[in-house]
C-alpha cells in the first residue's frame, strides 16, 4: 500500500516537473570541460607569442570559472596542461597534441601559433572522438580546406583576408598596377599567403615580377637574395618568420639592390621581439599588415591581463588566445556533453552564427547564465566576433598597417581595413 502511494506521489512530482520545465528554454547539463594548450613557449622567434597565447588562454579559463561561480552554474572548466611546441615544429606539436588527447583527455586544445603546427594538431583531433582544436594565430587558407571532421577551428582571420589588406596597403603606397616581387618561406603559411596575395594582386590589375621561396633551415640565403633582387619590381612582399628573415636580411643587404622601405611584410614582424631578432638596422623602413583586435574593451582587457600576468611578454595577438579559451569553456556549457559533434555545435552556438545577445569579455557572468539556460549568444571577445562558419573560420577580421622607424613599430589607425 505504501509502495503504491509512493509511486503515485513520484509520478505526480515528475509530471509537475515536466510541465514546469517545458515552459523554460532547455538548459544544458553540467559538464566538466578539460582544456590544454599547445604553443611555442620556447624557441627562436616564437616564444613571446606562444607564451602570451598560453597565458591568455589560462586567463580565459580562470575568467569563465569565476563567471560560472558568480552565475551559480554547475560544472567546471579547467586548464589541464600547457604543452610547449618548441619553435612550433609540427612534429613536436603532434606529439604534444597526442599527449593532451590520449593522456590528459582534454576536450579542447587551444593552439597553436603557426599554421603548420595547427594543421598537425588538427590531424590529431580529427582522429579523436571528443577533442576539438582552436588555433589562436594560424592564418593559412590551408586550415579552411583541411579535412578535420569539424574539429579544427580558429579565432584568427584567414590569410585570404590578409591578402586583401596587403593589396590595399601596396595599392595606396604605390599604385594598383605596380610590379611586386613575392618572397615567402616554404611552408603552409608562406605559400598559402603568397598565393592568396598574388591572386588578389593580379585580379585588381597589378603585376608580379617574380616569386622566390626559401627553406627555413637553409645553410645560406645568398642565392635566394640574388634571385629576389634580379626581378622587376616596385615593391617586395615578404612572408616569413623572424628567425629565417634574420638570415635573409643580411644577404639581401649585401646585394646592394634591396631597400627595406620598398618591402611589405606580415604580422610575424609586428612585435618588438621580431625587430630585435632581425636587427633594427635591417628592419627600419619596412611596412606591413597585421590582423588586429576588433573586439570591445580591448584596452581594458590588456590592463586586466597585465595585472593577472605581470611577467607576460605581451604581443598583439594575446587576445586571440583568451577568446579561444573562453569560447571553448562556453561551448562546453552550451553543449552539455563532451562529444566532438556536440562541442562543435556548442562553439557555433556561442560564436554568434546563430544570433543571440552579444556579450563582451567583461560580461561573462551574464553570458554564462544565458548559455547555461540553453540560449545562443554572440561572444564579442577581445579579438572580436568569431561567427564560426562551416569550416571553423571566423567570418571576418580587422587589419592594420604598421611600419618600423628607428627600431620602433608605428601603428596607423587611419589605414585600418575591416572585413
Amino acid at each position: 500500500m505504501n509502495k503504491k502511494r509512493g509511486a503515485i506521489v513520484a509520478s505526480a512530482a515528475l509530471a509537475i516537473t515536466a510541465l514546469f520545465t517545458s515552459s523554460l528554454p532547455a538548459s544544458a547539463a553540467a559538464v566538466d570541460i578539460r582544456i590544454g594548450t599547445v604553443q611555442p613557449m620556447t624557441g627562436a622567434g616564437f616564444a613571446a607569442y606562444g607564451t602570451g597565447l598560453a597565458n591568455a588562454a589560462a586567463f580565459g579559463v580562470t575568467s569563465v570559472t569565476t563567471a560560472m561561480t558568480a552565475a551559480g552554474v554547475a560544472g567546471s572548466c579547467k586548464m589541464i596542461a600547457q604543452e610547449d611546441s618548441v619553435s612550433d615544429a609540427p612534429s613536436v606539436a603532434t606529439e604534444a597534441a597526442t599527449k593532451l588527447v590520449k593522456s590528459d583527455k582534454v576536450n579542447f586544445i587551444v593552439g597553436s601559433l603557426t599554421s603548420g603546427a595547427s594543421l598537425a594538431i588538427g590531424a590529431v583531433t580529427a582522429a579523436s572522438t571528443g577533442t576539438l582544436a582552436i588555433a589562436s594565430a594560424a592564418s593559412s587558407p590551408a586550415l579552411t580546406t583541411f579535412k578535420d571532421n569539424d574539429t579544427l577551428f580558429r579565432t584568427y582571420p584567414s590569410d585570404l583576408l590578409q591578402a586583401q589588406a596587403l593589396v590595399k596597403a601596396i595599392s595606396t603606397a604605390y599604385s594598383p598596377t605596380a610590379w611586386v616581387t613575392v618572397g615567402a618561406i616554404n611552408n603552409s603559411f608562406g605559400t598559402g599567403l603568397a598565393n592568396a596575395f598574388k591572386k588578389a594582386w593580379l585580379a585588381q590589375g597589378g603585376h608580379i615580377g617574380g616569386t622566390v621561396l626559401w627553406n627555413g633551415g637553409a645553410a645560406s640565403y645568398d642565392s635566394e637574395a640574388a634571385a629576389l633582387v634580379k626581378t622587376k619590381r616596385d615593391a617586395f612582399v615578404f612572408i616569413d618568420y623572424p628567425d629565417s628573415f634574420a638570415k635573409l636580411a643580411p644577404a639581401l643587404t649585401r646585394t646592394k639592390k634591396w631597400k627595406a622601405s620598398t618591402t611589405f611584410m606580415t604580422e610575424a614582424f609586428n612585435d618588438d621581439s621580431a625587430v630585435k631578432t632581425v636587427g633594427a638596422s635591417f628592419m627600419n623602413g619596412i611596412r606591413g599588415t597585421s590582423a588586429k583586435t576588433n573586439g570591445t574593451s580591448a584596452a581594458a582587457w590588456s590592463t586586466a591581463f597585465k595585472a593577472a600576468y605581470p611577467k607576460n611578454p605581451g604581443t598583439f595577438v594575446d587576445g586571440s588566445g583568451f577568446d579561444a579559451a573562453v569560447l571553448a569553456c562556453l561551448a562546453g556549457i552550451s553543449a552539455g556533453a563532451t562529444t566532438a559533434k556536440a562541442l562543435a555545435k556548442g562553439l557555433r552556438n556561442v560564436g554568434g552564427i546563430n544570433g543571440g545577445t552579444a556579450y563582451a569579455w567583461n560580461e561573462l557572468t551574464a553570458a554564462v547564465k544565458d548559455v547555461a539556460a540553453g540560449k545562443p549568444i554572440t561572444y564579442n571577445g577581445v579579438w572580436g566576433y568569431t561567427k564560426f562558419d562551416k569550416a571553423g573560420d571566423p567570418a571576418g577580421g580587422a587589419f592594420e598597417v604598421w611600419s618600423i622607424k628607428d627600431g620602433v613599430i608605428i601603428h596607423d589607425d587611419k589605414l585600418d581595413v575591416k572585413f
Partner: protein
Amino acid sequence: MAEFVQLLFNGLVAGSIFGMAALGISLVYSVLHLVNFAAGDFLTLGAFTTFYLATSQHLPFVLAVILSMVIGVIVSLILEFILWRRLRRSGAGMLALFLVASGIAFILRQSIALTFGSDSRRFDLDQLTTYEFLGAQIARAQLIVLLCASIAITGIALFIKKSNIGKDMRAYADNASLAAVSGINVDRVIIATWTISGAYGALAGVFQGTVQGQFTNGMGLDLLLAILAAVVLGTIGDAYGALIGGFVLGVVMDLSTWDALAGGIPSTYKPVVGFAVLVIVLLFKPEGIFGVRARKI
C-alpha cells in the same frame, strides 16, 4: 658572368663549412667505425660558446673562437672516456653506436638550449661590407670565412700527411690490428681523432654562424644532412675526400640556381640537387669520389 661568380663564391663558402664539418665525421669513422650523428650539434656548441665568450664575457672574438674549439675538444674527449671507449670494449655494434650517437646529439642540443636559452643569436661582426669583383658582391665576412677555412683545411691536410700522429692515424685507419701490434699508440690516435673532430666542428659552427648572420640551437641539425652527404660523396672514411665532397656539394647546390642553366632551379630545391648529385656519383662510384682510396684517411 657576375651571377656565376656570385654563385660560385657563395658555393665555395658553404662548401668550405660543409667540408670542415665533414672532415671530423670522416676521421672518426675511419678510425673508430662510428658515424657520429652528434657532429652537427658540435657546430651549434661552437657557435653558442663563442657568442657567450665574445658577447657576454667580452673576450676578443679570436680568443673566444679558440676557447670554443678547446671546449669542443674537451666535450669530445669526455664523451670518449666515459662513453665511446666503454662501448667499444663491450663490443657494441654499428646499430648500437648509431643509436647512442643520435641520443648524444639530442642531449647536446637540449643542453645547449638549457644553458644558453633558445633565442636566436648573432655575432657582433660586420656582415654588410662587400667588395665588388667581376660584378659580384663579395661580402668581407664570407671572404674571411673562406680564407680561414682554406687555411684550416690546408693545415689539417698537411698535419695528417706529414706529422707522426697523422701517419699513425692513417696507419690505424688502414689496418687497426697491424697498427696496434707494430707499436702505434692506439689511445693517442683516438684522442687525436676526437681532438680534430671537436675543434673543427666548433670552428665550422663559428663560420656558419658568421656567414648566416644569425643562428639558433637547431643550426647543426639543419646542416647535418648536407654534411653527411659531403662525407659520403667524398668517400666515407676519407678525410681528404670529405673536404672535397663538401666543396663539390656547396658549389653544385648554389650553381644549380644559375639562370644560364635552363633558367636555374628554385632555391628551395637546392638540397634536392645536392642529394641527386650524391645518388648519381654513388651509382657510378659506389664508394664515393675517392672510392679507390677508401679508409686511408
